């Protein structure tokens, strides 16, 4: 058996009122990739924060044994000194600064009062090459894509002489291609002897990359699954540990839905980039959706899916939008106004619930009514009682877990926030719902509930467009699938005819043709 590099013994961490970690034991062997999986709020990030010294020694109980010694980390610097480096889920790069400046931020080369820029950039370039980036370290971070930014984060970690690298949801903002490249890079590092811990929701990735998988549930380690063998652990096996029961069907059946007439139709829809008007972001797209139908739009990130949806929603994205839009068969000229889109009974549920969707500093109640205040007010004066009743109704309907609708949305878990976002748009009483990545970053249980809500919407005769970059989800939930690549629709398939392979094949083919 290989040497144990890290052992966390009987870790207990309490927040006021909550026991976030309860007597957790966690072992990592030297030179392995160890995955930490669990639902949101299970305690994965807390455990890693204890390890990296973000929660300093003394604020938790238990021991951290690293490389044979019991350690007391008082801050991140302490753990980094020993080569424990954490890369957080949210990228922590300063867009206006260069890659090199970012990599050595807080760790400057040369003297504190006289930075040695030559060393900075030459060393930075060396590490960039190691992660397979060809960019110069003098390029500003804002000029490279998210995928490359993630690689810069890794290069930054390497520059700190990482021995144990912790990656918290490293692929959550990457498309399939970049994700795969990142995972392969991890495997490459493993060959070179690096030890890594990966936290991820994407179980296929975990199964692909990890040697050992530890499942965390409700602040405790439930089990450790060995994945050394030739046969990959099945996702169902991991899910079982995460939710504590067998999930026989990840996608609920839609029953008794009759698909009606075409509700929304767009033809030759073209959208140009708002800053670079010569660039077409959406190129000559035609699509339709029927009442009671769930239409999936699958594409890699950057394919123009979000832009398409937002341009339909009152031209909230893009310039020089051309093409024809029909609602219920009648041509519609929509103004450049979100209010106008709502009036035409369209709703756009954003992929970025914190950034574009919810007012985190306000209550569930306030968020629920925000897009449709007219319905609960007369002459712009809000009827507070009615508003409360509405919020309660949706809390019930969507099973939002909260003691009261006065709870601030910022205090809710991701899944519950997503439900509030859905509640807000369902209350706006749309006929057409454009759902952009409705299950991003939420745990398996909450996903299932969101799928049920989508089915209910279809059953109520709404036209649902679901944008997603998770293939199983698109396949499991849609009646019909459009495949989008580089601004164009490159394929359309019936769900029962489509498979993961056939969809990827369409995308690859279209890429070659271009």
């Amino acid at each position, binding site marked *: 058996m290989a040497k144990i590099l890290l052992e966390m013994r009987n870790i207990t961490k309490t927040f*006021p009122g909550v026991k976030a970690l309860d007597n957790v034991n966690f072992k990592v062997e030297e030179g392995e990739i160890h995955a930490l999986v669990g639902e949101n709020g299970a305690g994965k990030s807390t455990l890693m924060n204890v390890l990296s010294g973000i929660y300093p020694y003394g604020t938790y109980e238990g021991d951290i044994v690293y490389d044979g010694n019991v350690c007391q980390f008082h801050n991140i610097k302490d753990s980094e000194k020993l080569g424990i480096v954490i890369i957080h889920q949210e990228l922590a790069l300063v867009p206006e600064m260069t890659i090199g400046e970012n990599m050595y931020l807080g760790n400057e080369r040369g003297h504190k009062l006289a930075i040695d820029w030559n060393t900075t950039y030459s060393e930075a370039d060396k590490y960039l090459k190691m992660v397979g980036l060809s960019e110069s370290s003098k390029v500003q971070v804002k000029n490279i894509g998210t995928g490359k930014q993630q690689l810069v984060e890794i290069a930054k970690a390497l520059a700190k002489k990482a021995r144990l690298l912790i990656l918290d949801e490293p692929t959550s903002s990457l498309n399939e291609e970049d994700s795969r490249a990142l995972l392969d890079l991890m495997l490459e590092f493993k060959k070179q002897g690096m030890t890594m811990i990966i936290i991820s929701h994407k179980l296929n990735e975990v199964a692909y990359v990890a040697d050992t998988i530890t499942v965390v549930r409700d602040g405790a380690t439930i089990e450790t699954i060995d994945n050394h063998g030739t046969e990959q652990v099945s996702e169902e096996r991991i899910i079982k540990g995460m939710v504590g029961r067998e999930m026989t069907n990840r996608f609920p059946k839609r029953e008794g839905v009759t698909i009606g007439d075409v509700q929304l139709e767009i033809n030759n829809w073209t959208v140009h980039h708002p800053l670079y008007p010569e660039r077409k972001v959406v190129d000559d797209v035609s699509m339709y959706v029927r009442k009671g139908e769930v239409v999936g739009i699958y594409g890699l990130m950057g394919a123009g899916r979000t832009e398409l949806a937002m341009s339909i*929603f*009152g031209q*909230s994205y893009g310039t020089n939008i051309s093409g024809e839009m029909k609602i219920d068969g009648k041509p519609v000229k929509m103004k450049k*106004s*979100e*209010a106008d*889109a*709502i009036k035409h009974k369209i709703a*756009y549920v*954003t992929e970025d619930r914190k*950034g*574009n*969707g*919810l*007012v*985190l*500093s*306000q209550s569930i109640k*306030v968020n629920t*009514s*925000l*897009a449709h*205040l*007219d319905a609960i*007010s007369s002459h*712009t*004066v*809000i009827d*507070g*009682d009615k508003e*409360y*009743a509405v919020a*309660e109704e949706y809390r019930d309907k969507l099973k939002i877990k909260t*003691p*009261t609708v006065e709870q601030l949305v910022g205090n809710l878990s991701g899944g519950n926030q997503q439900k509030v976002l859905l509640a*807000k748009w369902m209350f706006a009483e749309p006929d057409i719902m454009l759902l952009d990545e409705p299950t991003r970053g939420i745990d398996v249980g909450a996903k299932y509930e969101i799928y049920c809500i989508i089915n209910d919407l279809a059953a109520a005769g709404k036209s649902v467009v679901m944008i997603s970059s998770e293939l199983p989800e698109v396949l499991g939930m849609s009646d019909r699938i459009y495949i989008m690549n580089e601004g164009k629709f490159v394929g359309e398939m019936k769900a029962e005819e489509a498979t993961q392979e056939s969809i990827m094949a369409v995308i690859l083919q279209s890429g070659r043709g271009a």
Partner: protein
Amino acid sequence: MNENKMSVGAFFQKYTMVIALVVVVMFFAIATNGGSLKPGSINNLISQNGYVFVLAAGMLLCILTGGNIDLSVGSVVCFAAAVGCVLMDNKVNMWIAVIAMLGIGLAIGTFQGFWIAKLHVPAFIATLSGMYAFRGLSNVVLQGYRVDITNSTFLFLFGSGRTSYIPDFIKQMTGSESSLNLTCLIFGIAATVIYILMTVRKILVQKKLNIHQSIIGQSITTLLISAVILFLTWQMASYRGIPMVLIWIALVLGIYQYITTKTAMGRHLYAVGGNEKATALSGVKTRNVYWFAYASIGLMAGLAGILTAARAKGIDPTYGEGYEMDAIASCFIGGASAYGGVGKVSGMIIGAVLMGVINQGMNMVGVDSNYQKVVKGLVLLLAVVFDVLSKRQKR
């Protein structure tokens, strides 16, 4: 229900500023041997700080949109008042002068709001330029000199002199010999009764809708506020009655309380400050929200100009300097977030009263005016630090 039970810590967190206010009031009451609680002092507190309440109400809306402030209000107060005073000095009808002052405030607010809302000029800069420009224009209008007001109706309605009280018509009608101002007493009692009835209605509706709010907590709050109203009523009734300024303050605070809690525009103000993008995607015309906030504070600056000129019985080119800071400080002490989206009229009132009480108390105790500024600065810092710390504990 369990989650409505508040721990002692949470209680202190929620009512920090109220507690601070009570402590400060008691401190000065002791330090001045009860002088600061005498009817005359309370009257002074109201009339001296009339402009703060009015401006802070407007400022709160600006701050809600995202921590934006309006630096120009001090200058606008002076400019609007200057124009009004010059008009009245030239024998123009008083009401025309009043409308002109309010109109000028509103127009300036709309003008500045235009740049902020439509052209995305940072509010700080747009209003900083206004602060310079309207100070200069005040000087131009006044030609560098003080202009006095002699119109007695104007002074009665907006001033805070001996005459500016609501006449005790009830006493006159009944011919009572009481030493108390009966009108004031009846008004105060009526206000208390209405307030209690409203709370009762609220609790009944909550019951009906199955809203679980702590009834005991609400009752205690209501009783305490009622007690304060009755105490103030008694003090004012045994002095000269209801000062006119109080009417204007109450009117403004009432309207702003209504706007922020009951109207769609109020909701939009909070939403824009909390997350502008999400609000825009909800179909709200966010730029108009900014415009509204700045137009509203302009109007309030006009009203504050009227009150300031009437209190001083004239206007001087230096009047209004630093008023913007008093308004901003009141909002922040009252718990408004410097990032926007959080803040209440009730909090702002507490902030303004706290500042006023400290000011007046220090005057009565005889603290040097330079040190008074130091104390005010520290109070602002402490209030915000406390706010930041208490929020951090929650996480």
